[in-house]
């Protein structure tokens, strides 16, 4: 090593040290503060922020949030078991919560909280509660396919006729929740056949937004995704959705599946009362109105709370009736792996 490199190296190291000094901690995130209510959240950050702010303003209880993703966070909670620092878990889709529930890690949700939410958006077990809902939609580009030509059922998309005509993001928890709805409604054999069709026909995107933008750009005529990405983009710049429309399958088709976002209290939490209070607040009229005004465009599930006026009412979607507790995430992964999608 020649000496003339030394200045460069020293400069880099000094720069690094200077930059480090400006941060608070040398190892990334500051450790969790045990005095605060800790929420493990896989929900969208802006929505959780709105809830946390409203909750703290009303109750004075301090809250900290760890942000993650459905599947990995659910499994993280299982791995942490009774040593977890989490008091509350919030998901985007219910299968991740079911994983935690099946490991016996949840405390039952207070009846008064459950009563704030319509029956179809909470599991029969009462171990967790719905906090929001999202609907499956078919997004399409009218310049590539006319509304009259759209398939009648989401299951039809497995037909060879639709090869290369639709996109989806099967590696994400959102789409996997939709598949779990198919599994619940149609059984393993038909799900397997449908997944094989998906493997043949679908263009694979990394997530809902990429699917939406691909349809918008005319790369692919149709896509399966959740409704709220489209409404959010429409409410903002329409940059990713101006050339597209949504189609709702309705008629209790599996393509009308409504996925429930879940909230639960960890059994291992030492702040049971505060954690229950948080769920009670989120599902209360105030909490659900906070969801609506956060413009997350997800559906409110609280009794008597209207969702954003831009959305078609949740009860007009004619969703198939599925107890969200029976959704089997691990089985879905097995089927999707067997079909060669994962």
């Amino acid at each position, binding site marked *: *090593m*020649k*000496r003339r*490199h*030394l200045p*460069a*190296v*020293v*400069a*880099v*190291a000094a720069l*690094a*040290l200077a*930059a*480090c000094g*400006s*941060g*608070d*901690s*040398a*190892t*990334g*995130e500051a450790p969790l503060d045990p005095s605060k209510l800790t929420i*493990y959240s896989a929900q969208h950050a802006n929505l959780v922020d709105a809830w946390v702010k409203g909750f703290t303003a009303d109750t004075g209880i301090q809250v900290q949030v*760890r*942000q*993650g*993703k459905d*599947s*990995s*966070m*659910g*499994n*993280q909670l299982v*791995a*942490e*078991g009774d*040593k977890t620092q989490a008091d509350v878990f919030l998901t985007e889709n219910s299968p991740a919560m079911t994983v935690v529930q099946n490991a016996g890690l949840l405390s039952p949700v207070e009846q008064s909280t459950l009563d704030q939410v319509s029956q179809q958006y909470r599991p029969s077990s009462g171990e967790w509660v719905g906090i929001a809902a999202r609907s499956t939609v078919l997004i399409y580009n009218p310049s590539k396919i006319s509304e009259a030509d759209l398939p009648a059922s989401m299951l039809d998309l497995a037909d060879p006729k639709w090869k290369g005509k639709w996109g989806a993001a099967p*590696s*994400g*928890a959102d789409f*996997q929740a939709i598949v779990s709805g198919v599994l619940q409604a149609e059984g393993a054999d038909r799900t397997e056949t449908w997944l094989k069709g998906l493997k043949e026909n679908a263009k*694979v*995107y*990394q*997530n809902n*937004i*990429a699917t939406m*933008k*691909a349809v918008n*750009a005319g*790369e692919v005529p149709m896509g399966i995704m959740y409704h709220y990405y489209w409404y959010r983009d429409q409410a903002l710049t329409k940059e*990713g959705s101006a050339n597209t429309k949504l189609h709702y399958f309705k008629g209790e088709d599996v393509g009308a599946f409504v996925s429930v976002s879940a909230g639960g209290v960890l059994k291992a939490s030492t702040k049971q009362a505060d954690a229950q209070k948080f769920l009670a607040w989120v599902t209360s009229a105030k909490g659900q109105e906070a969801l609506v005004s956060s413009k997350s465009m997800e559906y409110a599930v609280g009794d008597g709370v209207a969702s954003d006026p831009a959305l078609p009412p949740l009860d007009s979607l004619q969703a198939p009736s599925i107890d969200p507790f029976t959704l089997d995430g*691990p089985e879905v*992964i097995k089927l*999707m*792996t067997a079909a*060669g*999608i*994962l």
Partner: protein
Amino acid sequence: MTSTSTLSRRGTGGIGPVAISAVVVAGICVLPLLVILATATESGLGVAAQQVFRPRVGELLGNTVSLVLVTTTACVVVGVGAAWLVERTELPAARWWRLALVAPLAVPAFVNAYAWVSLRPSLTGLGGAALITTLSYTPFVFLPVAALLRGLDSRWEDSARSLGLGAWGTFAKIVLPQVRPALLGGALLVALHLLAEFGVLAMLRFPTFTTAILDQYEAAFDTTAGSVLATVLMVLTALVLTGERFARGRVSLARIGSGVRVQPQRVPLGRWAGPAIVGLTTWVLLSLGVPLYAVGHWLGAGGTPILSPALLGALSSTVGLALTAGVLTTVAAFPVALLLHRRRTLLTESIERITYFASSLPGVVVALALVTVAIRWIGPLYQTPFLLVIAYAILFIPRAMVSIRAALAQAPGGLLEAARSLGDSPWRATRRVLLPLIAPGLLSGFAMVFLATCVELTATLLLAPTGTTTLATGFWAASDSLDYGVAAPYALMMILVSAPLTWLLLSNSTKDTR
């Protein structure tokens, strides 16, 4: 060399602390390999075989292999061609071309992919993946080949020409065999990077083993299915390494003895000057111009302030992790380098091979193994920065080793010997004499690891504690939702961080020939 060997013999009477630390480091490096094999086969070989021999694996294998073949070939052709133009022809402003052809190293490949996809969303599949990876990885071939061409003794070429061989014949029969080691080394680096690549391929929707392993992990947290895929990936890595060893063969065109090296004549380009300059300009525009333009464009269009609190948070996490990883890796590399420097025995040979192979494994394999270890056996480590730093150390230890070994080779051994004979203990002599001597090597090793850590994506995605965002993962989260404006400041930061590394590499390679 004789002086160092006298020092060594006394320094290593039996198994000392150096040897023990080196064995421990090698053991940690080899851990991922063992864990992956054990996890993949835990349900029995039959089940593992079932998971390997299915259509999806065949598809991934086809994708991975074709990408490696196409991109490596393209990188070799472009890299060697450009190196020859820059070093052996009368190309105007050769110095600047050299800089411009190495500079793409400062743009992490996944940032390059982001730039291209944000401007041309239809760029997908093998074609797109091969284009982006070739643009990003060609410097791996260009850099060593150019360095070697610059230092070649042109006497053989002169003899060949005087014996009637044409310009092309001379290039093929005389020059190419001599640059073969550098060319193969560069090609090996390209192939290993391709096997490990995640960001580019996820963005261009071209699934390979690495992307499939991450999908499995994301979806199911399933380390068994992931481990089976990772095993296939390890086999591919081993094949690439062996392939390179075979291809390298035994080249013996070295000059023996002293004598004056003849500086090669530069070939006049004549009417080829125009096409050569146009070709190189196009290449630089595609590999450097496009990403810089795109990042600038999105910085302007994004409307978000460049130094947002989120970015500063990511920057401080990244720097914190990179500092820790840099120090830890350099400290871990030191005993191994010292042991390898002192004597060649079966033990040191195996340690060298082991750390080399383990560090050639894709980041996703190492990360998956550490996740498995943490979840199953040492729970408290799961979701800690410690585990992430260990992964960085395993992945980047060769970068520190190279620098330290170079420094050790240049350190005069007699001084240490003198300190020992004056009564210093081995530790005191090392501290007072050896460490100051090799300090620049240690620092440069540290810097290499620091900079590599700053732009590491794959292992960080798997191992970063929830809530910790680095520059790479912050960039990834934004570009994954196609928020190009939000991603741009992260891209800029990573380019700024990588620039010194590029400069370091370039000046290292120009120095070698002086």
